[in-house]
């Protein structure tokens, strides 16, 4: 595993305040979700999950058809569609449109896809001001940090952190009451909304039969981003497309509940193109950027392509005992948690961070809560196999491969296995049945050391089971 990965995990584990913040925030979301999908609250929950999975599976298996249908229908309503293959094409498109429209200020609503393509950095590099308007994202933008969580980006920040950030970056007097901090942000961002020339959003869903972009939020910043400026650009991964507006009756029931335990998010916007004749407000131009950025790489694998079903609810993060300990910034890419662990290797190649698929106890909690039934543990296991195949090809980690070859040999030679067991038991210290705190040097291999760093080892029994069994 990379030194960076190990270090980040260690640093997060060693920070008690951060541990508490992550654990309580995710714990709250876990409880709220549970209440909202309980049998008396949502009796159809499992059925809805199956339906959602089936719709996503069908959409991905017929993706080209639905992308074309989406484009046709959106263009019929005055919208425009652009396909971009990577980050550079996205920023090039936005920059050239901004230049043509004489735009200097852009407001942005929360979008992991735009994080993925480093949009803000690229725009700012070219002299545009691109302001995040979701409160959590805004705080992080001021702090020059990446989001910590898909749904709760500033989960790791205390109100005192926020006070410091606001004072330093906004030059306002020290204020650590969340309501007042929110009011400060509201005032600053209101000005931006009303003077920006371009509003950029992501998309929770792209609806093929209506040519529509669906945005789900709680603050109202996505509504403002897509209603006030003259130009609206929605940047969406190609996997976001679903066949019919009526499918939202399934997805919307699952999304907010899975994310925060709400029945529905405060605002759900269904946007089909620019404002129409006679409308007083609304964008004059409506652009949708359909982004590949590696998604097409996931399509050929019939099992792993289910990773593209994700509706970005964050439930897997909240429930994952590993995420709840190592937090979002330990992960090597913008997507964290179990979903991050399965898409990162597929987008970046398994050798980008070969330890990532192994950073899981395979407890299965993630697959259990996924509203679209992505079998995350299965994909993790497949990725582990992919990592080992790649390592074999590149002649890396040969000692480990040898060890498992030896393991397989030993386990198919029962008499040798038995002998080995007796030898190990003889070597190990047995202190009247008490668990072992340290071992002799000969036995102190890295795995044994790793175990003993925080746990005791069981003492070897006087007789193995098969010896006891024989003596009956």
């Amino acid at each position, binding site marked *: 595993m990379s030194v960076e990965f190990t270090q980040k995990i260690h640093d997060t584990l060693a920070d008690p305040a951060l541990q508490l913040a992550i654990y309580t925030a995710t714990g709250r979301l876990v409880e709220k979700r549970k209440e909202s999908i309980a049998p008396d609250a949502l009796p159809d929950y499992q059925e809805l999950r199956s339906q959602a999975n089936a719709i996503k599976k069908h959409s991905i298996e017929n993706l080209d058809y639905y992308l074309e249908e989406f484009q046709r229908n959106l263009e019929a309503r005055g919208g425009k569609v652009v396909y971009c293959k990577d980050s550079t094409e996205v920023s090039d498109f936005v920059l050239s449109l901004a230049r043509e429209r004489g735009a200097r200020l852009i407001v942005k609503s929360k979008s992991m896809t735009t994080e993925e393509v480093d949009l803000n950095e690229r725009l700012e590099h070219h002299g545009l001001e691109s302001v995040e308007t979701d409160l959590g994202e805004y705080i992080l933008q001021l702090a020059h940090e990446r989001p910590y969580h898909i749904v709760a980006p500033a989960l790791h920040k205390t*109100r005192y952190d926020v006070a410091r950030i606001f004072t330093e970056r906004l030059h306002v007097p020290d204020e650590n009451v969340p309501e007042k901090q929110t009011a400060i942000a509201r005032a600053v961002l209101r000005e931006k909304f009303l003077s920006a020339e371009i509003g950029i959003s992501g998309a929770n869903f792209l609806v093929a039969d209506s040519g529509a972009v669906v945005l789900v939020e709680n603050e109202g910043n996505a509504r403002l981003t897509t209603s006030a400026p003259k130009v609206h650009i929605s940047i969406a991964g190609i996997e976001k497309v679903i066949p019919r507006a009526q499918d939202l*009756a399934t997805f919307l029931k699952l999304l907010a509940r899975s994310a925060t335990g709400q029945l*529905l998010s405060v605002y759900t916007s269904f946007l089909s*193109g620019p404002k129409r004749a006679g409308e007083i407000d609304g964008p004059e131009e409506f652009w949708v950027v359909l982004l590949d950025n590696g998604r097409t790489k996931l399509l050929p694998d019939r099992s792993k392509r289910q990773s593209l079903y994700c509706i970005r609810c964050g439930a897997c993060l909240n429930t994952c005992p590993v995420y709840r300990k190592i937090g979002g910034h330990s992960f090597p890419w913008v997507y964290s948690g179990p979903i991050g662990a399965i898409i990162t290797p597929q987008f970046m190649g398994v050798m980008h961070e070969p330890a990532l698929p192994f950073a899981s106890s395979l407890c299965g909690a993630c697959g259990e809560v996924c509203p679209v039934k992505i079998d995350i543990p299965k994909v993790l296991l497949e990725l582990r196999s992919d990592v080992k195949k790649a390592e074999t090809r590149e002649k890396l980690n040969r000692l480990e491969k040898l060890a498992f070859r030896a393991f397989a040999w030993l386990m198919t030679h029962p008499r040798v296995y038995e002998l080995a067991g007796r030898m190990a038991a003889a070597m190990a210290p047995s202190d009247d049945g008490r668990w072992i705190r340290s071992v002799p040097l000969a036995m102190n291999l890295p795995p044994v050391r790793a175990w003993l760093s925080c746990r005791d080892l069981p003492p070897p029994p006087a007789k193995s089971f098969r010896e006891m069994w024989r003596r009956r």
Partner: protein
Amino acid sequence: MSRDNILHRVRTGIGRSAGQAPADPPPVRIRIPEVDLEARIGSMIARVEALAGKALRDADPRAYVAAAIEGKTAVASNAPYLEECGITSLPGVRSGITDSVELREACASADIGITSADYALADTGTLVMLSTPHEARLVSLLPPAHIAVVPRGRILTSLDELFSILPDPGAVASSMVLITGPSRTADIEQILVRGVHGPGQITVLIV
């Protein structure tokens, strides 16, 4: 350009050819429960109140609004229904704006925004608003308080019923917004704060 390239990669990845008909999608899943009007109204009110909004039934909308805007500035949309209720003629209510700059300025400075609603969803306490020449988007968005007047017959049971009536919302409007409670965030220490960018106060008048 990238379009053809990307679509080609998609097709190769999933094993389809250009122009190939799609497989049959899973049938649409819409379940509309039988709930009578009284129960729908009751549910709507309970849900809105559970979200810290206010909901009233059978109130006289004109009288309610007149009291609510006392000492405050208000802007109303151009919904004919609001005119019928006599709300737009109340002194202190700016209405009939058709210029976008004027509308923006009025909404940005008003304390209260008053609108009608096209539908409501009883099981979640949701207002459904379609943007039209009569219902502009910013009226329910910029002012810190929002009053919506909803004819009782427009209260549907749920999302399922909405999408059954409007299988393609884009056919009727460029924007359909589902509003479920006041604007909120829990971004700072998971502490709930209302009225972030949208209105922090919602009142639903069921008439």
